[in-house]
């Protein structure tokens, strides 16, 4: 698979430790750093800006409560985006899958040969047909850039199991998108 590793510019573990102890400035530092990633993951799962915002805000409340229990401070980014993904799944569950996908009719320009690209509207259509769990898996991989080991650590299970699920999902997407 393509290397999706995102450069680590994360706040240090000292910041996480301070935030876990209730230091609001340190926590705000985490918000500044990780909110965009969480919002993108939640949006990828819900397809709706309002619902995604709701999910991420709920995720920050959970993070405030539970940060003290995070053992590996170096994994805070994966931990936060996983909470956002879980809250986004819960939002879909609460709304019974009735979330309205609000998608842009036009893709961003300047992405090279259009024939090489996947239209946003096609991706949105395919995502809409996926289970919330599968959407979360794809979002953690392709939006948050987590590898299978990180995803497994956050969601439970084995890295090989995550790889297998991802491979099946990607194959399904390839079939559906290449015929879109």
């Amino acid at each position, binding site marked *: 698979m*393509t290397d*999706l590793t995102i450069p680590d510019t994360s706040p240090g573990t000292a910041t996480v430790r301070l935030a876990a102890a*209730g230091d*609001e400035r340190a*926590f*705000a*530092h985490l*918000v*500044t750093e990780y*909110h*965009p990633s969480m*919002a*993108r*993951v*939640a*949006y*990828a799962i819900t397809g*709706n*800006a*309002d619902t*995604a*915002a709701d999910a*991420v*805000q*709920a995720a*920050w*409340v959970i*993070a*405030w*409560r539970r940060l003290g*229990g995070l053992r590996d401070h170096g994994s805070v980014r994966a931990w936060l985006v996983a909470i956002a993904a*879980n809250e986004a799944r819960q939002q879909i*569950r609460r*709304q*019974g*899958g*009735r979330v*309205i996908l*609000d*998608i*842009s*009719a036009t*893709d*961003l320009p300047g*992405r090279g040969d259009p024939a*090489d*690209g*996947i*239209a*946003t509207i096609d*991706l949105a259509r395919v995502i809409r047909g996926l*289970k*919330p769990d599968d959407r979360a898996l*794809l*979002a953690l991989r*392709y*939006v948050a850039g987590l590898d299978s080991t990180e995803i497994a650590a956050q969601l439970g299970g084995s890295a090989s199991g995550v790889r297998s699920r991802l491979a099946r999902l*990607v194959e399904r*997407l390839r079939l559906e*998108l290449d015929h879109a």
Partner: protein
Amino acid sequence: MPDRPTFDARLADAFERYVHAAPVGVDAMAMTTAASVAALPRRSDWSSARLLLAAGLLLAGLIAASFVATGGHPLGLFTVTAPSPVTSPVHQTSPAPTLAGGAPAWEAIYVRTDPIDSASIDVVAVRPDGEERLLRRIGTAIKGSDLLLSPTSGRGSENGWLALGTTSFRDSFHGAWVLFDLAHPSRESRIVPSDGELTARWSSDGLFAVAGNPCCWKVEILDPRTGASTDLGKIGLFGGGPSIVWARDGSGILDFGRLMPAQGGKDIDVDPDLLFADRRVGAGFRAIDICSPDQTYNLCPSATEARVRVTNSKGTKTDWFVSRNPNEQPVGAIFANDGRSLLVTLDRVSGQRHTAVIGRMDNPGHFLQLGMFDLPPGAWGPELGQVDPSDSIYSLWYLEGSTDNPQSVMGPLLHADGTISPAPRGTFAGYVSGQLAESWPALGEFGPPQSASPQP
């Protein structure tokens, strides 16, 4: 000629474009403060936090300015041509019911797609006995706009206004609320642009509050009767946002555990007896936590049994319900209409079957069962939906399907007298007094639903 990108790379690229409309803007300090308030409801001196918020205000202003510059609308209020008029005939009527003893205390307002004309939305008033009156039929198209009215986002005020949200496929931030005066069908509707809006709520006396984004939690209050608007600035909304929680008397909105007066100005302490319109908030800013050791995020880390915990305005926690039976777990709780008692939902499991049990608790440890409903085979996850202002009608929801892809299903209505009736079709929008609703003109009347079949 360069190699064609791998599918993996194309997929990553497509996801990157797909999420470009994600709501990434945030005021970090405001989010931090709101998260801490939501996590532990308490009175605090927020003056230092507010000083820090000043920097956030400047940032939010810059974001807003850039948003407007790129085609967005600031929140505001103006009138437009009314949506398409009603043209199709009323398709079903039944004799008007005789209401013994006058109008009911409350009637529910529901909105739904018209079963014959899918380009129209029906607005109906539903009496407690299930009899329905069609109040309005509204075309979904809005002249001069690419927006369509949505039948799934109705919000009604107690004084008879209805706000309908919109859907748009242009972009995520593009939207509006359209406000209708149910008492006066000929009155021109009003459109409230809500690009990037997070939420909106009516006060009991008919003021419409909208929380905007990307100016996180900037709240504007609109009076549809006069067109007047009041900018309250940034507010620390309940739960870290985006919930707008009105005081039940319409005097203001929760702001960082204090009260922002509806007319603006400085926030004030929450009176210990003040009631709120949102049942998640009790008198004087009490809050409820459902603690479950089985959940990933147990809100009561030291507790080994599921419980319902209330935190008062001073931060004192009291366990109202502690589950001693692993087959009977609390799954939801809201405050009763007095803001102090609780309405608690239990999930009672016997073999593979789940039963929803709703009870009232006037004191910790005292659970009085109000009603119960056996979920259909294969269903689970009961939730309490709307409760009427008299605490006498409770709507139920539950889940069906596989656990990794559940579908939420609207169940029946449970009545305080022990009866069970089918839920009305459509989306619940709000309650109005029966006397007011009965005074409105109607296009036709309907009998109650004849079966208790669930609605997906």
